[in-house]
């Protein structure tokens, strides 16, 4: 009959059906969705950016291999989380950094933030963001040397939109209503390499109101993967559809931040309440990357909906506060890191078993 007594089956536990992506599947999906933004960044910033990305990913994989092999006696590269961390880390670095920085950052992210606490699923701090903060405070100089996009290889100039905004806050320019005007004024870096790409950018940029288009496309100085909010958002649609990212965190984050930026963003420029440049702030800097890909990292974010919403709100509020009154132009990394600390507390909020509800 084909099923004799010799071929005994092991008693596998129920259930015997499964659905949905595996952990590795989720990680690789996120990596895929991130790739367009990265490719775009390399196109804009040149070969240097590619080197930075390669080093950060390579160092991340190497560290994971070494640490998990030596200490855990297990090889965990296949779960894709080291690859994702390395990629995200590379995206949040400026294109012109000396290469030891992505290496050190990757090492810190994997060995200290992730593996020292027990490996995948046990860290309380987002590895990419924590490493970015580490690198930001360790080598502040190289981390703030920006490069204008499509510039000739050895021309390092230009400030990021947020940097300009921060400067304007400390040295007020009379008659300035909002940070976007600064950007427009400064949007003509020297040494621009003409070519089909810059033509395409100019044409696309004209589709949106002046300045915002450039910011959405990423045609401004900034970190490698952070610039193009458009490409990041497009990539994230797939992740939302497949429920790999919970929608609550990005929605609460961007919503609260946008609201605060609109309500209070105009105050430092003397424009009054409810006249803030929300679009500028939403498109500037690492907000898109941070809100869509880093804050929503399942390991370091709350488990249930009420906790997630509060987490997003907190991130948004903190980002706004740090950007406006902090010493650094960018506040996303620190804001999310701070909120990561509250996650165990937020996990206690919301959702009780049905029978407990009935008892009340």
């Amino acid at each position: 009959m084909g099923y004799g007594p010799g071929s005994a089956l092991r008693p596998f536990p129920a259930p015997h059906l499964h659905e949905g992506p595996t952990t590795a599947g989720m990680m690789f999906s996120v990596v895929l969705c991130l790739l367009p933004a990265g490719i775009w960044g390399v196109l804009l910033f040149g070969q240097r950016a590619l080197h930075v990305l390669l080093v950060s990913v390579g160092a991340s994989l190497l560290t994971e291999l070494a640490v998990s092999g030596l200490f855990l006696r297990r090889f965990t590269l296949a779960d894709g989380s080291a690859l994702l961390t390395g990629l995200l880390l590379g995206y949040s670095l400026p294109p012109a950094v000396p290469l030891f920085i992505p290496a050190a950052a990757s090492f810190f992210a994997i060995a200290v933030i992730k593996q020292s606490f027990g490996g995948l699923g046990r860290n309380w701090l987002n590895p990419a963001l924590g490493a970015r903060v580490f690198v930001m405070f360790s080598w502040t100089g190289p981390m703030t040397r920006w490069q204008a996009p499509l510039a000739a290889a050895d021309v390092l100039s230009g400030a990021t939109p947020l940097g300009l905004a921060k400067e304007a806050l400390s040295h007020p320019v009379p008659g300035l209503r909002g940070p976007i005007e600064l950007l427009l004024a400064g949007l003509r870096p020297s040494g621009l390499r003409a070519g089909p790409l810059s033509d395409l950018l100019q044409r696309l940029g004209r589709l949106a109101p002046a300045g915002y288009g450039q910011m959405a496309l990423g045609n401004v100085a900034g970190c490698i993967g952070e610039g193009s909010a458009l490409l990041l958002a497009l990539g994230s649609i797939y992740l939302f559809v497949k429920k790999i990212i919970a929608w609550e965190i990005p929605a609460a984050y961007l919503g609260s931040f946008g609201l605060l930026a609109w309500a209070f963003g105009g105050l430092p420029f003397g424009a009054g309440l409810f006249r803030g440049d929300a679009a500028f702030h939403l498109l500037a800097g690492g907000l898109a990357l941070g809100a869509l890909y880093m804050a929503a990292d399942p390991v370091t974010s709350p488990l249930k909906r009420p906790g997630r919403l509060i987490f997003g709100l907190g991130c948004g509020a903190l980002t706004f506060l740090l950007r406006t009154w902090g010493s650094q132009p960018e506040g996303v990394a620190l804001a999310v890191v701070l909120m990561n600390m509250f996650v165990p507390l937020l996990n206690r909020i919301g959702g009780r078993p049905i029978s407990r509800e009935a008892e009340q």
Partner: protein
Amino acid sequence: MRQARTFPRGGIVPPDRTALSAGIPIRNACVPAEVVIPVGRQPGQCLVRPGDTVSEGMAVGRAGGPDSISVHASIPGRVREVGERILADGSRSLAVVIDLQGEFTVSARARPPVEWETLSVPELRERIREHGVADLSAAQAGAGCLVVNGVEREPYISAGQRLMIEHAPELITGLQILRRILEPAEVVFGVEEGRCEALESLGRAAEAAALDCRIEPLQPRYPQGAERPLLEALLGRSRLRSKTAGTAVTDLASLYSIYEAVVLDKPLLERIVTVTGLAVRRPANLKVRLGTRVGNLFEECGGFSEPPARLLAGGPMMGSCQSGLEAPVTRELEGLVALSRSEIGRAAETPCIGCGRCASACPWGLMPGEIYKALEHRLFAEAEAAGLTECTECGCCAYVCPARIPLVAGMRQGKSRAPEG
């Protein structure tokens, strides 16, 4: 058209594989040469000794206490031994093993249907009890609502569906009998909305019998066949909270058994079992004598088209994995599923990443990930606070877990290891 109802929280929608067997009409399985009938171990629970001759339908023991309902010999014959056997769920039980011998005194004779309307309620209760169907002597009349579970308890199973299509009048009769006994204020039938043939057949039978019942189509979701989600779907959560007692739930197999017991005066000897799965050559819905060896059923369905990756008694979500084919069919066994490699999709276990899908999928609002973590560290108090005791092991959490963590196995172990009190 109003959207079909369903239970409010959690749950999953597994792919509908009932098509494998839903079109196959019920047919009688071959009578086995031997049956194994589990009985209780307590003295007085086994009524026969090795060597006794039993007739078809004779009571051979009790499964529970001295006043519990009896179990009957499903074939006529001689008791070969009374010994320990391993059942489908892995437990060991004392069992009566009967070799086929003699004539079929119950099945062979065509009996005239009993006029059950003329019987009194205590008589009805007694018939149902003595034929081994259910003990309704404690059931109070005047229940608020009588709910019939027309939803299969597990994916892949189509026994209930076929019952509704082929034997709707009998089901309605059984329902009427039950209604007479319990006198509920309301009768509700819950059926999945996609089962058009079944719904139609049921509707026609209910109309023909002039039975005042509400047939409610439900969205196809798992575990809607479980009692609590079913009640939530049909009656709504607020109504459930206000009347915790006063709702009686029954299922299709029970209704059919009630019909057979009262109208045909037949004890509980058989049940419908769905034999299905991609690894079965010819899936079928068989009417099986209780105590038949599981392997016989697979043979009748043409054997295995490929070596099965899983052999399950029950369904694919909560069924127990069989390591052999010797287990007997008992009254609770609804299905036998032989899954092929492609259906189970094996993947290695990875650490929990805290994605929270398990919590969203749990129909009871528990947090399986937290319970599992607490159990790993032997924090039983925390596990219970997170809801360990309320877990029904439905399997929704493990179904969606991306890390393929064996959550249900962990819960089961935790429940057995948790210190009392």
